[in-house]
C-alpha cells in the first residue's frame, strides 16, 4: 500500500482570476422567458416549501374529482340506459356535461387564482427584489406581462385538467366512442374557450388586487372575499329574478356568471335563449378586464416611479 509520504505531489492550484463573459447576450427575450418560467415554477411551489407545493393541488384536486364523478355518473346511466320511466312516460336522462362542470370549477379556479396570483407578484415587492429586475434590460410591462402569462398558463392547466378528465371519462364510459365524439365535438372549443376566459379574467383580477398590497395573505383574502360576496349577491339576485328577467343589471354582480356566460352567449347562443341581453355579459367582461388591467398597471407604474 502506498503511504502519503510516497506520493509525489505534482498538482498545482491555479486561480484563473476573473473571466469576462464573451458569450451571447439574449437581451429582453431571455429576461422575459426567465421571469415567465420563474412565475410558473413559483406558482407550482417548485423550489419552495412543502405547503407551497401542496396548496395548488388542494384547490385543483376537488375540480378533477368533480370531473371524475361526472364521468362516473355518465357511465353509470349509459350502462342503465339513457331513458328512465317517470310513471307518466319515459324521460331522457340529462347526463352531466362540461357546462355543468364549468360552474363548479369556475369557483375553484378563482380560489386557485387567489392563492397563486399574489404569490407571483407580492414577494418580489415585499423583499424589494423588484428593484433588481428593473435595473436590468426589461420594462415594467415586460415583467407584468411575463408574470401575467405565467398565471394564465397555470390557471388554464388547472381548468383544463378536470375537463380533460371528464372528456376522457365520457369517452371510456360510452359504448359508441366515435359517435360520442361526432355528437359532442363542440364541447372541446366550449370548455377550452371558457377556461381561457376564466384564466384571463382571474389572472388580471388577482393582479389588480395584488397591486394594492405587498402581503400575499391579504391579497388572497381580498380576492376570496370579493368572490364570496359577488357569488352570494348573485345567488340572491337570481332567487328574486328568474333567468329570463336578467335585464336587471344586478345580475352582473356575480363574477362567476359573467365568466361562464361569455362563450355560450357569443359562440353558441345557448346560454339563455330568452335573454336578449346576452351581449351584456361579454361587454361587462371586457369592461371589467380592461378596468382591472389598467388599474394593476397604473398601480405598479406609480409605485415604481
Amino acid at each position, binding site marked *: 500500500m502506498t503511504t502519503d509520504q510516497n506520493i509525489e505531489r505534482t498538482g498545482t492550484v491555479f486561480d484563473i482570476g476573473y473571466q469576462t463573459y464573451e458569450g451571447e447576450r439574449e437581451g429582453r427575450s431571455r429576461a422575459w422567458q*426567465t421571469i415567465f418560467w420563474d412565475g410558473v415554477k413559483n406558482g407550482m411551489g417548485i423550489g419552495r416549501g412543502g405547503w407551497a407545493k401542496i396548496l395548488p393541488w388542494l384547490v385543483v384536486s376537488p375540480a378533477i374529482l368533480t370531473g371524475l364523478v361526472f364521468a362516473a355518473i355518465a357511465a353509470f346511466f349509459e350502462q342503465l340506459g339513457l331513458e328512465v320511466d317517470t310513471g307518466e312516460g319515459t324521460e331522457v336522462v340529462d347526463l352531466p356535461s362540461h357546462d355543468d362542470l364549468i360552474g363548479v370549477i369556475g369557483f375553484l379556479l378563482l380560489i386557485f387564482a387567489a392563492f397563486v396570483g399574489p404569490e407571483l407578484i407580492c414577494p418580489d415587492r415585499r*423583499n*424589494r427584489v423588484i*428593484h433588481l429586475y428593473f*435595473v436590468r*434590460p426589461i420594462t415594467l410591462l415586460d415583467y407584468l406581462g411575463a408574470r401575467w402569462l405565467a398565471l394564465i398558463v397555470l390557471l388554464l392547466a388547472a381548468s383544463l385538467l378536470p375537463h380533460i378528465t371528464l372528456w376522457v371519462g365520457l369517452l371510456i364510459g360510452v359504448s359508441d366512442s366515435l359517435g360520442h365524439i361526432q355528437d359532442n365535438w363542440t364541447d372541446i372549443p366550449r370548455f377550452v374557450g371558457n377556461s381561457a376566459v376564466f384564466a384571463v379574467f382571474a389572472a388580471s383580477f388577482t393582479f389588480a388586487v395584488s397591486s394594492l398590497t405587498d402581503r400575499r395573505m391579504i391579497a388572497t383574502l381580498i380576492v376570496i372575499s370579493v368572490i364570496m360576496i359577488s357569488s352570494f349577491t348573485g345567488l340572491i339576485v337570481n332567487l328574486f329574478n328568474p333567468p329570463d328577467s336578467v335585464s336587471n343589471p344586478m345580475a352582473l354582480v356575480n363574477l362567476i356568471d359573467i365568466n361562464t356566460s361569455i362563450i355560450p352567449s357569443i359562440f353558441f347562443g345557448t346560454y339563455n335563449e330568452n335573454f336578449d341581453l346576452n351581449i351584456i355579459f361579454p361587454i361587462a367582461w371586457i369592461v371589467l378586464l380592461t378596468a382591472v388591467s389598467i388599474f394593476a398597471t397604473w398601480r405598479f407604474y406609480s409605485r415604481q416611479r
Partner: protein
Amino acid sequence: MNQDSYLLEARDLTKLYGIVQALDSASFTVGSGITGLLGPNGAGKSTAIRIFLGLTDATSGSALVMGADARHPDARTRLGYMPEHDCLPPNQSAANFLTHMAEVSGIPPSRSRALAADTLRHVGLFEERYRPIGGYSTGMKQRVKLAQALVHDPVLILLDEPTAGLDPTGRTEMLNLIRRIAREFGISVVLSTHLMQDVERTCDNIVLLDMGRVKESSDVKSLTEETELIYVEVANNRDRFTAELSDRNIVHTSEGIAISIPDVDGAKFDAIRDALVASEARLVRMGPRQRALIDLFRTN
C-alpha cells in the same frame, strides 16, 4: 477623455419632485475607474443614479449610459446596480438567486449557473452559496448584493452606499473588494456615498453634489494635492502668535489645537518664522498637510 468613451453623462439634468428640486441642471461625466458620487443626504446622488438606471425620468436634461439614452432598456444591458436597501429573497440560495438574475440580464441558462458560481467565488461566498440568503450576516448580504450586480459581467456598476451597516472590518473588506473589481476585473465603479473617507480610500475621481448641483468634478488626487495647507502648532502664546500673523497679513484659521495657513510660499514661511520669534511662542509642529475632501464642503 473623449466624449464617446464616457460611461455616464449627465447633461443639464434637472429633477423635480413636486416643489422639491432634487437635481438642478447637473452636468457631469463618469469615465473608467472608480468614481465617487459624493454629497450629503439629499444632495441628489440617489436621484442621479435612479435616472441613469431608467427608474425615473428627468424633468429636463438628458442622461446617457455608454452613449445611449438611459430611458431605453438596452442601455442597462452592461450596467450593474447594488442598492443601499435590503433587496434579497430570504428563502432562496445565493446560487439560485444569482443564476436567475444573470438570466434576467440576458445571459443564456447554460452559462448562468457557472457565472453565478464564479461571481460568488470572487466575492468570497463560494462555500455558502447553497444556503438560504435569509440566514446570512449583514456583511454576507452586502456581498450577495454586490455579486448580483456583477453576475452578468457589466462594464460599469453603480454602488449605492455599499458600506452602510458594516462594521470597520467589513467596511475595509468591502472597499478592498471594490478596488479589486476595478483594478483586477476591469469593471468601472460609481460609488455613491456620503462617507468621504470611503471616497478618499477608494476612488480615482469624484463628483461632488450639493443641493442638486455639481460642486466639484475632478480626480481625487488633484483635489487633495492642489489644496495644500501648512499646519502650525504652538505650545504657548497662541493668541500672540495669531496676532503677529494678522499683523503680517497672513490669512489663517484655527482648527482645534492647530493653526492652518493656506497657500504658503517662501515669503510666507519667513513671515511665519518671524511671527513665531516675535510672539515668543514655542513651536511644537509645523508642516504641510494634504487637505481632506471634507475641506471642499468647508471652503466652497
